């Protein structure tokens, strides 16, 4: 029902592509990150919550249609529906029902709680295409609340320096602002890229820390600043005369990664499923046929085969997302 093509994952019976790599006739989007929502396609379909974020990324000209979570939609010879993936606001799994049974494309997902989005809902299916970004048993996440407390303690400890926290500008940043809002009401400063998306979250009624845009202030001593990792090492940084830097990402589960990349601190918080969550999810779908994409997919495939499932890698081998997780 889903085949691999040069354009990305293709559903010929439904006449659409899921998160296509290049412009196509009809794109179904799992979420609004740049490596999934790419410009140039003739029409896009995503969940309603996701639309403002896709609009921000793709511009006013893009043709975007929406579905509610769980709403069934006829596409060619198949019935398509979108279900919460828990990765970030508006993220969805794509469920496709047709002559060959039920197939589900997970998109990116996590099983941890996230105050900014609906939790992942496992879908029973015959074939499951799962992400495998962190598919090694050394990746296991601590509870997000305890990571948020670590971040707050770090911020409060830097009373005479700026606390520069790098993270994915869309999704991770707002999740952190929402987790921190449960612990404090001190305002945080935002890089412009983070601010753009944060306004969309706020207008959707999600409780976030109060925020201010980083302007031409002289000192940020004692302040928390959220910035995309792409801002690191740019002239934008020069305004921070004295700072500690940290990165919030699942990648930092590995101590060497933090040290090689020269951050003072690493906060291990990810919007992807860790190893136990991947195995649990595969189990809950009941799928006998599993495809793994991204990250350490080869390891997941081999492990699933050794536990008796039919498993294969799928999708292009992509270089790691430069923005990190």
């Amino acid at each position, binding site marked *: 029902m889903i085949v691999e093509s040069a354009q990305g994952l293709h559903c010929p019976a439904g006449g659409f592509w899921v998160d296509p790599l290049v412009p196509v006739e009809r794109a179904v989007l799992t979420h609004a990150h740049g490596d999934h929502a790419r410009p140039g396609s003739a029409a896009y379909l995503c969940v309603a919550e996701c639309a403002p974020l896709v609009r921000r990324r793709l511009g006013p000209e893009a043709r975007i249609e929406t579905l509610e979570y769980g709403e069934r939609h006829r596409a060619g010879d198949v019935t398509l529906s979108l279900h919460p993936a828990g990765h970030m606001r508006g993220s969805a799994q794509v469920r496709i029902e047709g002559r060959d049974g039920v197939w589900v494309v997970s998109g990116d997902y996590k099983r941890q709680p996230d105050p900014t989005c609906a939790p992942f809902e496992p879908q029973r299916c015959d074939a499951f295409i799962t992400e495998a970004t962190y598919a090694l048993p*050394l*990746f296991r996440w601590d509870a997000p609340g305890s990571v948020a407390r670590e971040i707050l303690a770090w911020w409060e400890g830097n009373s005479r320096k700026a606390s520069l926290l790098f993270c994915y500008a869309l999704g991770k940043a707002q999740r952190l602002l929402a987790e921190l809002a449960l612990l404090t009401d001190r305002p945080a400063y935002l890089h412009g890229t983070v601010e753009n998306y944060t306004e969309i979250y706020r207008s959707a009624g999600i409780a976030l820390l109060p925020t201010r845009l980083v302007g031409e202030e002289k000192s940020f001593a004692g302040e928390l600043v959220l910035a995309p990792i792409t801002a690191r090492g740019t002239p934008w940084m020069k305004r921070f005369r004295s700072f500690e830097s940290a990165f919030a990402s699942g990648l930092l589960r590995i101590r060497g990664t933090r040290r090689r990349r*020269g951050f003072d601190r690493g906060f291990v918080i990810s919007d992807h499923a860790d190893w136990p969550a991947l195995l649990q999810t595969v189990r809950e779908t009941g799928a006998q046929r599993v495809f793994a994409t991204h990250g350490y997919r080869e390891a997941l495939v081999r492990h699933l085969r050794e536990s008796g499932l039919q498993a294969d890698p799928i999708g292009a081998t992509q270089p790691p997302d430069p923005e990190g997780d």
Partner: protein
Amino acid sequence: MRRFARLYDALDATTSTNAKVGAMVAYFADAPPADAAWAVFFLTGRRLTRLIGPRLLAGWAGEHARVPEWLFLECITVAGDLAETIALLLDTGRSPSAEPPALSVLIEQTLLPLREADEEAKKRAVVGLWDALERREVFLLNKLLTGEMRVGVSATLVIRALAQHAGLPPATIAHRLMGAWEPSAKSFAALLRADATDADVSRPYPFFLASPLDEEPEALGERSEWLVEWKWDGIRAQAVRRGGGAYLWSRGEELITDRFPDLSGVWAALPEGTVLDGEVLAYSQAAPLPFSVLQRRIGRQKLSPKILAEAPAAFMAFDVLEQRGEDLRALPLRDRRARLEELVAGRSERLLLSPAVDAPGWAELRALRQQARERGVEGLMLKRWTSPYRVGRPRGDWIKWKIDPYSIDAVLVYAQPGHGRRATLMTDLTFAVWSEGELVPVAKAYSGLTDDEIDRLDRWIRQHTLERFGPVRAVEPVHVFELHFEGIAESARHRGGIAVRFPRIARWRTDKKPEDADTIESLRALLKVR
């Protein structure tokens, strides 16, 4: 154990030296002395020898985490470290014991006895500990077991923290920590005691370091107030002859006795209760050999007869700090020098007395200094006759009057961000000279520019990057800099076939064009000066 793990995290989580010292002071104030002693042991870079091999450890961990071998290997490849891989794989939401064993109890009562235990007993003990410890503690335990415990802090900071904690001068702590320091509650208490008598026979004295001459020597007063010696280009070292043994300590507080078996005759010839300060040199036919010759034998694991013959060592003594077990450091240099001359005379042909340079005035010395390179020395040392042997680098009594550095004009070709405070600025710079129409990198330099110049260059580099290799940027080769460096030697490991010592930026030569830069031939010519 938990307290030490927290200290490890605190040290790991900051690059600020004040924060590191603060974390250590807090730890020393809080930890029981027996644990603090082991912490000092590891913080000062000392290590346990390996208790369990990595292969055995990996096997047990894979079994315990129920991870097949292929998957375990994948994980090691990604984490890059066995101790960490195990800690992460076993981090499965277990509930570790409320209070793990104290660091000293763990090491002395559980780990060290494992040396004698059979494999089954070792495994039982290790797996039991894994289950009882938190993630960071499991990591540290594994580092202890494999003998690879390292903490990211310099000895100077540890000494500063201990001094602050004890209310003693850092020099006292530094001296007490030198040599083979045995970790115990008793030795930790002795480290902090206000009036401790120092018993360790191998222990050297903290080194007296010279400061550079930053004015004309005439400003130092009468020539006759100063002892003048050559500044030797070797390894600064103290020779300690006590308790029937001999110990050679480098300035980095490394015991290097075994690196110089050809000096054993020197130690045997010294009387008991003697400490000499001097320089280890490669020395042949009444003249020092270049430092690069000595360097060749420093790197060797095994010293073959050939190496020993090519770079025979000698100890060039220039001070005596202890005689017949008596600390002489408070005596004026004039008295120490008299004793030294008597002590060294005729003992061994590998034991030399650093001669006094007896030119009568500053002008004559200035002329002699110009010959330093031909003589294979780094310049002159000026020592005040009335001075005691001090600690550290106080100004005024020991002064190095170094030869002018080598100087070349080179072109900036690569740049990458610096570290710490300079992590946002392009300050690690690579420079090249011409070789057959191509620019060949010859030196990296990090320092020498003003803050304004750094800002200006940083902007320029970002706008003129030709290509990026990870963090490294190739830039348009248009800017010429005058580089200074202290030494030059042939090197098979550098692309230009030449290695320079201590390169730094002297000036940004905005008046020069890249084609005005030096050539590899002009650099090679410098090799022949000495």
